């Protein structure tokens, strides 16, 4: 379940293989796809600031659209990015109560990441420190860092693009968001091990 950063194949590759097999008729593989992509999609949805129920509905809609349009998706390998785009768009559409589909251009930027007050109380001391540093980043960087943290290194660039970040904003180079996280953590003597 947990992505291994050392894996040569990222989640996107594994998801693409499972989806391609499903399209070829291996029905079981869709369930593997759901297992692979759910943590990334959940965090992509939740980072938009919507309720858990809204995020769940958005994910369900994305999966159902994927099944309905399985034959017309040209690049099975890009299925992870496709799902992230749809989940983000659906989360905004549902949160806004809009009946129409909304275009990618209409999707606003993610808000500053929030944690429920109860969730904050269960953080370890170290996680509390990390949370403060994450909160000091720009909302776009917070969203990007949160989502890619649930994927593997080869996935970062595609995920950033799916979230609406400019091409080249991350991967294979560190990019500004990861660099800022590194600097803010590095400047905290309490964080260094």
């Amino acid at each position, binding site marked *: 379940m947990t992505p291994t950063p050392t894996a040569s194949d990222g989640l996107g590759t594994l998801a693409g293989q499972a989806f391609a097999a499903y399209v070829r008729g291996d029905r079981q593989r869709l369930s593997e796809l759901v297992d692979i992509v759910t943590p990334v999609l959940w965090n992509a949805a939740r980072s938009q600031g919507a309720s858990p129920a809204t995020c769940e509905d958005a994910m369900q809609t994305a*999966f159902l659209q994927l*099944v309905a349009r399985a034959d017309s998706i040209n690049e099975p390998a890009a299925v992870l990015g496709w799902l992230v785009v749809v989940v983000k768009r659906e989360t905004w559409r549902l949160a806004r109560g809009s009946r129409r589909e909304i275009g990618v251009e209409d999707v606003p930027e993610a808000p500053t990441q929030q944690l429920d007050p109860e969730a904050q109380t269960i953080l370890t001391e170290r996680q509390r420190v990390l949370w403060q540093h994450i909160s000091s980043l720009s909302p776009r960087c917070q969203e990007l860092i949160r989502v890619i943290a649930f994927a593997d290194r080869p996935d970062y660039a595609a995920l950033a693009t799916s979230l609406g970040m400019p091409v080249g904003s991350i991967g294979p180079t560190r990019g500004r968001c990861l*660099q800022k996280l590194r600097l803010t953590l590095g400047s905290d003597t309490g964080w260094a091990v």
Partner: protein
Amino acid sequence: MSSHSEAIDEHDVVNLRSVRDLFAHADPVPSDLTERMKFAISVQALHAEVAELIDSALLVTRGRDAADAAVEPTPTDSVTFTAASVSVMVSWGVSDTSDASGTGGPSGTDERVRVDGWVTTPGAQVEAVTADGSRSATSDANGRFVLDDLPHGPIHFLVTDPANQGDRPVITPTIQI
């Protein structure tokens, strides 16, 4: 000094792992979310009719506390689902196959489950979909079927009638066994 134009290194990977642990801890994926997604997908992909969960009866009483539970006979549960075209009753208990390999310890994750079922259609194909994949059985002339060696956890059933290819398949809600 590091720069944003350098390659991502182990230091960044460690930072991201901490970020992942933070959000996984503070805002975890709901435990049964993937099962609900898979169920919704199956219903749509198969154009299936969703059966209703009618009743859930505990056939054998469990022990009142943990100490009793260890010596109680195998708890057996039973559930009935109904749809317009078909009804299904399933009951389940610890599979005999678990005993063969068991070393006398408390029921661990290796324990397997046997499902005994009855469906109103003889000759129906009943597919049990679990975390391990799926397993099929065909109901006999009386509608009885057995699915053995299943894992504990979420399961749903898919009932199709090979004699009536035009009928919509029936899918049951997911239950825990």
